[in-house]
């Protein structure tokens, strides 16, 4: 089960810069660790993440194993209209994750 926490201001004015923060629960396995019996733990990291704002892509990130488990990302976007923020990500096991939130914009 993919779990994520998105943090946004409750409301924004049109044209305002909005800070978006997201934490995703993910082990971000590097592929270099070994289990107690010596076998290698296979690499499994989120490698791509996309954020769409009212259907338009506004943020894209390429992640790799240098990023700690439960990655935290922060970016800014300009509020234009009320709409959904859709996050989508994919890891090395081809497991997709998604999270959604709503941004309310007043003029």
């Amino acid at each position, binding site marked *: *089960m993919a*779990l*994520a*926490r998105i*943090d946004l201001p409750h409301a924004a004015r049109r044209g305002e810069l909005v800070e978006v*923060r997201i*934490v995703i*629960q993910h*082990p*971000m396995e590097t592929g270099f660790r070994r289990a107690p019996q010596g076998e290698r733990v296979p690499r499994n990291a989120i490698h791509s993440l996309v954020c769409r704002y009212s259907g338009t892509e506004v943020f894209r990130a390429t992640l790799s194993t240098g990023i*700690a*488990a*439960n990655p*935290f990302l922060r970016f800014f976007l300009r509020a234009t209209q009320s709409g959904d923020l859709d996050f989508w990500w994919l890891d090395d096991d081809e497991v997709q994750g998604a999270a959604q939130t709503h941004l309310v914009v007043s003029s």
Partner: protein
Amino acid sequence: MRKYLILAALIACAAQAQNRSGLEFASDEIRRLQASDAENPGMLWVDQGAKLFAQKCASCHVSMKGVATRYPAVEDGRIVTLEAKIRHKEAFAYESDELLALTSYVAHQSRGMPMNTKISEKDVEKGKAAYYRRRGQMNLACAHCHEQNWGKHLGAETLSQGQPNGYPAYRLEWQKMGSLERRIRACMFGLHAELPPYGSDAMLELELFLVWRANGLPIETPAVRR
């Protein structure tokens, strides 16, 4: 000059006697991480716990506010931790995400409330003895670091008092949440000592003593530690 020295010594003595949360020994970055619910990764487990609680526990329980302040407790002569209490219905594995999530969720509801266990000094006799007993190849007791030398450095680490008020906590070393029992085992590992099994008497007695000693410190779950 002498007057100031005496005053400084008095302040040092007063500080010595006081319980200090592990947070006070943490770096600014870690404190900031713990303080912000949007950035604290431990909140992921609290969220997961809320979902599990709604599925599995909500038919009997409503609010768990204040519950975590009273655990571990002694019930009918046996030591019962919050983990053990949660496991009474469904035996989740120790350190499983489910158990950590539920424990974190319950403890989180008491965040900021002082630990208030009703344990007597007699109850913690065994744990106290274990706390002061030397162990492992390093031949050190818990007290050597966490009572006699807290605030000083061990390598790059600042030794804390080893207070349990933040657990279950998110440890950067683990890259996930972990229980107080796991933290105690991590110390034992460092001493090259035998690791007490999860839920064993030796573990529970030590845990009970730590909690008795920490009475009055605010609960910080989900705390962030190095």
